[in-house]
Structure formats: C-alpha cells, structure tokens
C-alpha cells in the first residue's frame, strides 16, 4: 500500500475564489497489476477432486498437474488440502495430465461442486462471481480453460439476451495499445472544467453506513489509480477520504446527510440523487443496527435509530426547482460538474431532457434492478423499468431534442461485466456506473444480507468494527484495480474486433447488437 505522506509540491492548486482552498495533499495510487489472492482460507472451486483411501501417495498427481492443484508438503504424512480453485475441471480431461485418469490406484474422483449452484442468483450466477474473483485476483481475464460462463447471467432478458454482433474480421486493424477507452464528462462547453476519465465507468454511491470505511477507501484509491471517480453516497464524507478529493463525487440526496458547503467545495463533481434504481420513489434506508457510533456521528443522527431519507427533495416540485438546486451547487462550487441521478419511470426520457435543460452535465439513470444496501423486496423487483429499456429511450430522445452531444449519459443498475458495459454504450450510454461488481471483487457473494444486524458477514457492507477489520484497504484497492484492468482489457478486445479506436465510437451503435429473442432482420443505420 502506498504511503499516505505526500511531498509538499503535490499540494493542490489554488482553487477559484469562493471555493474552499484545501491544503490536503492528494495521494497518488499506482496503476499496478499485482496478484491479490482471495482472503479466505478456502477458495470456492467449480470442480472438486476427491481422494479416496486407495491413494498410496505416489505423488504422480503432484508431478502431473501444471496448475498446482495437488499439494505435497515435505515432512507431512498426507497431502495438504488441494488448491481446487486452480483446477480447470472438465477441460483437463482431454489432456495427458488429467490426474483422475492417470492415477494408478484410481484414487481420484472428479465431481461438480454443488456449492456453485447455491452461490449467486439469476443475475449474478455462480460462474460470474467466481470469474469476477479470478479477475480481481489476477488483473486478467479468467483463463478460458476454466469454462466460466461469465459474460452473461441467467436472468433471461435484457443484457443477458443481448449479444455483440462482431464482424468476421475487424474492418480495420487497430493496435490494442492505441485504443482509447476514455470519455469526457463535461460536454456542455459551459466554461467549467473538462473532466476526462480513463475508462468509461466510475464507482457508484455507497454511503459510509451502508459500507465500511475500508470499502469506501478501497473504492476511492482504485478510482485514483484508474483516473476515474467514486461517489460518497448519502452518508457524509470521511476525513480519511480527503487525500482522494479529486476523484470523489459528493452525493447530495434528500436526507442531506453529510452535505455541507465544504464537502461540496472539495470535489470536482456533485451528484444530486433524486432516486435510486433499487428503491425508486422510496428514499434511502439505513436500518438501526448499522447506525453505529461513527455512522451516527458522521450523519449527525441519533445512535441506533433507523435512518430514512425522505422522498423526494422537498424543495423540488419541478424542473425549474431542480434548476435552482443546480444553480445553488454551481454557486457554491464554481468548478464542479453536476450529475443528476434519477431512476427509470415511464417518462425517464422527459426527466433526462428536463435535467439537461436545468443545467446538469451528467444525466445518470439508475435502472430498476440496481444495487442497494437495503431496500424493500417489493421495490427491488417491481418498481421502475430495467436499465436496458431506459438507455435507448433516453439516448434517442436526447438526440431528437438536439441535446445528445451536450450532455453525458451514464447508466447503472445491473451492469456486471465488461460485456454489459459495451452493450450499454452500444444502446446509447456514454459510460456506466458500477457498484456490485466492485463489492464482488472484494469478496461479496451476493447473500443479500447487507441490510441489518452486524451487516455484511464478509466485512464489506458493514459498520461493525470487527467485521470491517476482515479486509484491509490495500488488498481491497488492489482487487478493484485488478478488476478494472481485466475489464479494460476485455473492452479493448471488443473495440478491436469492431475496428474502433475509441470507445466513444461505440455509443449508440445498436447495429452492432443482436437479441436472441428477436428475428434480428432489421437493418439499423450505423
């Protein structure tokens, strides 16, 4: 982990007149890809290799296996626990080093791990979780021989039924090293800073309270490494986040937790959260168990009570009121870009155009299946439309209104892989916001128990001191940096196959998509 001490010359620039001039040095985090193995003793594997009593410990399996599955520790009477997460399973059967077939005593047996079925769900399948862990561990795409079906989930619709329609060969040969995956976040040309991020995604808002400070810091440090952003969520702004101010988005939501002039002035982007995809129209929830001493202090609330943000902003009845909100922030922080996060009702296209008219730089639409730290199940499943429908709607409407090239459209709510990112951009988004994927990189298993009690049993979405201590910032940072690297690699590979030099060329290219449930016989103009 890089040192927190920074030389004097890297102090921040002097900011415009009425902006808080902070003297907090900004920390740099190296974009280095380093192995970050899982933090549990036993990694979960797709395949189990069982060793029976017939084993005579000849050691052939140890010598044969190029992946290091079988472990023979010198000085021990028995083999150590095998590293089953390294086993490539069925793909090994055709090789000459397949331990099960080669064992002279027939002492080894291969079985499918029943736990994979118990892991994950329709949207995040067991394979997708395991593959994301692999990417977070290595910084590279999961090796093909593992056979992970990770590019799509099993939800039966949306991204999971869309496919990228690759040409037989790239129309233009493009050097992968020359492909630009960066996007601009300020397209208004209104004199405010031009902010460019190196990858077409940034981290979603997760409050201190919904997740631990370790999780928040890991997200922020990875954002620094990749020159992108993370968002505070609606829970205040920890002092420990200040060395990363330049890569933080302050969220202003309806409860205004942690919203002060100084937290608005610190950052380059301020996000208004009108609604959240997981609970559209319902405001935020933080159940009392997670409102610990530090959370209560940060939110200036009473310890142990459930905190509900109201819905909606009580000062906003209309787009004109929304404009006043934006003007307020713009006045408080003259260098800030404004993002407006909304959910996906029927009229999401109108809301997006209205928000643009009110002066926002980024329209962030969060689809109905988005993530959350706590939400009523009835809301998660039933309210507002999935993001796959909303992106195209908003993109086309903004085009029709002549505003498309003057506003950045960011989509979220169910974006899980680099393929999802490419599909979202092809449908019309400029970029995406991710949330759950970062947590999965840090070891989340989607057990959905983030909301109450001590919170996340895996120490990610918790405010319990003991549980949070299960993960350290350096490890979490590295896992996210690695995941981003793997995703970028995959995205670059997709762009190369399309013969594109920039990710911005993919925006709105629905002609490069196909849907498995349709005839796909419509010729859409590129």
């Amino acid at each position: 982990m890089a040192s927190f001490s920074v030389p004097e010359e890297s102090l921040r620039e002097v900011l415009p007149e009425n902006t808080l001039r902070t003297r907090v040095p900004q920390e740099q985090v190296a974009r280095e890809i380093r192995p970050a193995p899982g933090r549990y003793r036993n990694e979960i594997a797709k395949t189990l290799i069982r060793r029976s009593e017939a084993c005579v410990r000849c050691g052939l399996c140890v010598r044969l296996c190029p992946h290091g599955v079988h472990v023979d520790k010198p000085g021990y009477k028995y083999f150590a626990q095998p590293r089953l997460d390294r086993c490539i399973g069925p793909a090994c059967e055709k090789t000459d080093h397949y331990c099960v077939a080669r064992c002279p005593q027939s002492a080894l047996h291969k079985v499918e791990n029943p736990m994979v079925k118990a892991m994950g769900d329709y949207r995040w399948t067991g394979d997708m979780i395991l593959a994301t862990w692999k990417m977070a561990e290595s910084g590279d795409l999961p090796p093909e021989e593992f056979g992970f079906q990770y590019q799509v989930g099993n939800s039966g619709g949306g991204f999971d039924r869309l496919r990228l329609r690759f040409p037989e060969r790239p129309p233009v040969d493009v050097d992968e090293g020359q492909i630009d995956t960066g996007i601009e976040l300020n397209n208004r040309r209104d004199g405010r800073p031009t902010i460019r991020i190196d990858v077409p995604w940034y981290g979603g808002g997760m409050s201190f309270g919904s997740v631990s400070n370790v999780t928040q810091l890991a997200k922020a440090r990875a954002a620094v490494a990749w020159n992108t952003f993370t968002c505070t969520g609606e829970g205040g702004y920890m002092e420990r986040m200040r060395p990363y101010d330049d890569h933080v988005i302050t969220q202003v939501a309806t409860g205004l937790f942690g919203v002060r002039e100084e937290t608005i002035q610190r950052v380059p982007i301020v996000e208004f959260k009108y609604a959240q995809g997981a609970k559209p129209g319902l405001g935020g929830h933080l159940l009392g168990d997670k409102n610990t001493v530090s959370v209560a202090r940060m939110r200036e609330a009473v310890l142990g009570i459930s905190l509900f943000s109201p819905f909606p902003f009580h000062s906003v009845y209309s787009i004109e009121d929304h404009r006043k909100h934006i003007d307020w922030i713009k006045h408080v922080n003259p260098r800030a870009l404004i993002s407006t996060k909304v959910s996906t009702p029927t009229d999401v296209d109108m809301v997006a155009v209205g928000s643009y008219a009110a002066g926002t730089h980024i329209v962030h639409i969060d689809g109905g299946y988005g993530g959350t730290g706590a939400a009523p199940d009835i809301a998660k499943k039933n309210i507002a439309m999935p993001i796959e429908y909303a992106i195209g709607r908003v993109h086309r409407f903004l085009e029709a209104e002549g505003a498309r090239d003057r506003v950045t459209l960011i989509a979220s709510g169910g974006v899980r892989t680099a393929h999802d990112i490419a599909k979202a951009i092809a449908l019309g988004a400029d970029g995406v916001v991710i949330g759950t994927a970062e947590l999965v990189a840090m070891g989340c298993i989607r057990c959905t128990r983030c909301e109450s009690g001590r919170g996340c049993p895996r120490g990610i979405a918790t405010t319990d001191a003991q549980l949070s201590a299960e993960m350290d910032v350096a490890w979490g940072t590295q896992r996210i940096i690695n995941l981003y690297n793997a995703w970028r690699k995959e995205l670059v590979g997709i762009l190369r196959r399309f013969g594109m030099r920039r990710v911005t060329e993919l925006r709105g290219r629905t002609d490069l998509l196909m849907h498995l449930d349709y005839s796909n016989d419509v010729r859409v103009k590129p």
Partner: protein
Amino acid sequence: MPEKYHLKTQAVPPRLPRVGKFGVVDWQEDCARCHNCVKKACVYDRYRHEAEYIRTLQDVDALYFDCMGCFSCVQSCTKNLLRLSINPEYEALGNTYWTPEIIRTTWLQAETAKIPVSGAGYPGPFSGPGFDSMWTDMSEIVRPTRDGIHGREYISTAVDIGRKRSFLGFAGGELTGEDSPLVSIPMPLILDLTSPRHTLPSLEPCLVETASRTDLIALIDAASWPVAGVDPDRCLPHVAFYLRPDGPQVPQEVLKKTRLVEIPDGRDVAKAIRTLKGQCPGLVVAVRVQLDREGVQRAVDLANSDEVEVVHVVADPNGNEVGQDKPRFIKDMIRQIHTSLIETGRRDEITIMAGGGIALPEHMAKAIICGADLVTINLPLLIALECRLCSQCRPGMPCPAKLEQVDRGYAVGRMTNLIAAWHDQLIEVMGAMGMREVRRIRGDVGRAMFFEQLEEESFGKLFGTRRES
C-alpha cells in the same frame, strides 16, 4: 382527517421446524474441532442456535436450516470440510407458480408482520409470466405525499364495494334517486373461501376472527354458520356468506347483520339478487364468476345488467383461465373486463373483485392497476399458517403442516401479521407512484409498464419480430 388504518401486530413464531434455503452438508470426517465455523466464521451464530433449537424441539424430524448462505464458514474451515447446498426440502416447497421463495417470504411476513427488506440488487429473473411481466411506475419529482415515509399514513387504501352512481340528479334542489348500499373496507382485500380440500372446521373461526381484527371481510360458506367460538355481533359485519341456491340458507336476522353476501353465477342471478335485496335492503350482493372460457364475457354481461352491483371473478389458484390448454392470465382477463366496461360506460358503477393467483402484495397492486377494485385471497392465508402446498390434502390423510390442529391465537396472529405486511407494502408501491388513494390506481395502466410494450418500444425497432418463447 379520517382515522388511520393501523393494525396492531406482534411476532408469532412458527410451530414447525423452519425450512430454510441453505444447509451445510458434507461435513466430512477429519474435523479438527477448531471451532472456526462455530465461534468465528458464522456471524449469525447459526451453529450454536441450531444446537439449542434441536435440544428444545420436541418433534425432531427435520434439520434446522436457517443458514444465511454467506459461505463464511465454508471458506474459513481449517480443513476445508464444509460444503453448502440448497436445501432440497426448500426446493420442494410449493409448485411452479407458488415458488419456494413466495412461500418463504410469506412465512416471514406472517411471523414478523414486517416488510421483507434485503440488501443487494434484485436477484431474480428479468421478467416472467403473469404478474412478473409488468412493473409499477414511480414519480421522479412531483409527489402528493411530500412528507417522506411519515406522510404515508395519509395514503388511503380504503375501497367501496357496491353500486355507485355515475352522476347525481337533482329536482327542485333535492337529490333524486336512492343510493345503493356500499360496503367500505380499509384495504382492497377480502379473505376468500378456501377450496374444498383446504376447508377445515378449525380454520373458519380463525378466518372470521382475522377479518374482524383487521376490519376486513371473510367470505365463508353459509353451511359453516354458526361458526363455533365467535361472537356473532362483533363478527357478523366482517362475514360475507356464500349462499348456494341448493345449500343451507342463513337465517334472515343473521343475514341482516352482515353487509355483503355472495352468490354463484347462474341463470337466476337477477331473481336471486332481487330476493335477497327484498329481504335485506342494506345488503350488497356479489356474484361469483369462474374465469373459464366464457368467464370474461359472462362477467362483462353481468356487470352491464341492471341488477348486478359486484362481480367477483375467480381464476384458478395459479391465476390461469380455468380449463384451457393455453390459458389467459388473470391480469389480462381483468384488463379485458375493465376495458369492456369502460366502453359501455358502466365501469364506475360496478365493483370488480378478482381472485386466483394473488400470491404476493405486489399482485394486489398490479391487479388493481389492471382494473380490479380489490382482490381476494385464500392460499396466502393458509401459507401463513405454515402450509407448504404439498398438494397431499386428502380426507383422512394427516396434514404435514398440522393445519387441523392450529391454535386460534396463533392462526389469527399470523394471518393478521401477513395482512399488515401486505398493507404496508401496498403503501410502499403507492408511495413510490405518488398516489394517495388506492381507488385512483384502479385501471390506471399508465402507472404500470408492461413487458410486451417495453420490449416492442425498446427492442422491436432494433431487432425485428420477437419470437415466441
């Protein structure tokens, strides 16, 4: 300000061993007794609870599965001995419509009366058949209940049952004509008849008592009257008798104390209604129509007749059209009935009650959006009593959920809890829509988004014709 509808609830624990989703299996030999799993890895203390539970359980015939599926013990086991699996008993619950997840969440609500809340995004399929092919809308900015969650108590879920006037007539400054009787209940829900296989003598008083406690109405067969152990004066306003023409009738003085009755559809419906109205002018009479091949048209015809004021349409337990190879789903049939009545200008005069396939509180909201005034349920109430829809109900066969032995306090408590949780969830959905009255979402399909429509609008233009799944 009208009195707020609030149900007093308290936790009612289950009688039977829980059937959880996960279970730790394959606890192989060679355990090091390090107690990592017991003392450290499981933040829920499940192992310890399991041991205590089994010690105190009198009828140990099932394992106690209350694992949360976090895999911490599995991944922390010193010897890598533990495996986690989906509990096969859980997977065997219910059927393809009444899924294990529906049964599990119903049990949870019946026990706690709380709205199910969880973290992470929605884990289920993108969409599905039936009610899963629609989403309710929300209002991004403009809201009538502007006090956040504290304004939700001002959302009205009350509905009226009976014939309403389309307009008022005056002569000489005086209102002309007579108003038909109306029954008002605080929530768009009626406790429906249980099917013959689920009808148990011990359940009738529980249903009546629950209706009384929740200020709703329970529909019971006239043959069940008098119901043992219930106070007639207190309970009769919450009872609606189902009067079969060939079955036993209820004494007139008893009938007069009720507000609603139901009769089956038949040739002499109009005559039967006139007779009942003659005996008890204050009664509202509903006609039960089975949604078979002719059901939709029959419901429309009845609703367009002068005598009928309430039509109760009932699909099969899975919400399907009865007796059809390719059945329509109840939401589509309700929309058809609703639209037909709008075309004839009669919709606002008639009350439509819809039952069959209403398994979750969202189904209540969605059925109303599709055009019903209120819904009727029976299976969710049985599930609240720990029925697991094993479909083994036969005369003389023991019920695995021991429904014939339920204690009244337990049953009324669990059913009340479930109704309270449904009510709260209806308010969640209405709050998100920015609606203050459930009467206003009736038939307001603009407050919903339908899968077919969204697919066509979003993907039809891009990808051509959608293939039949």
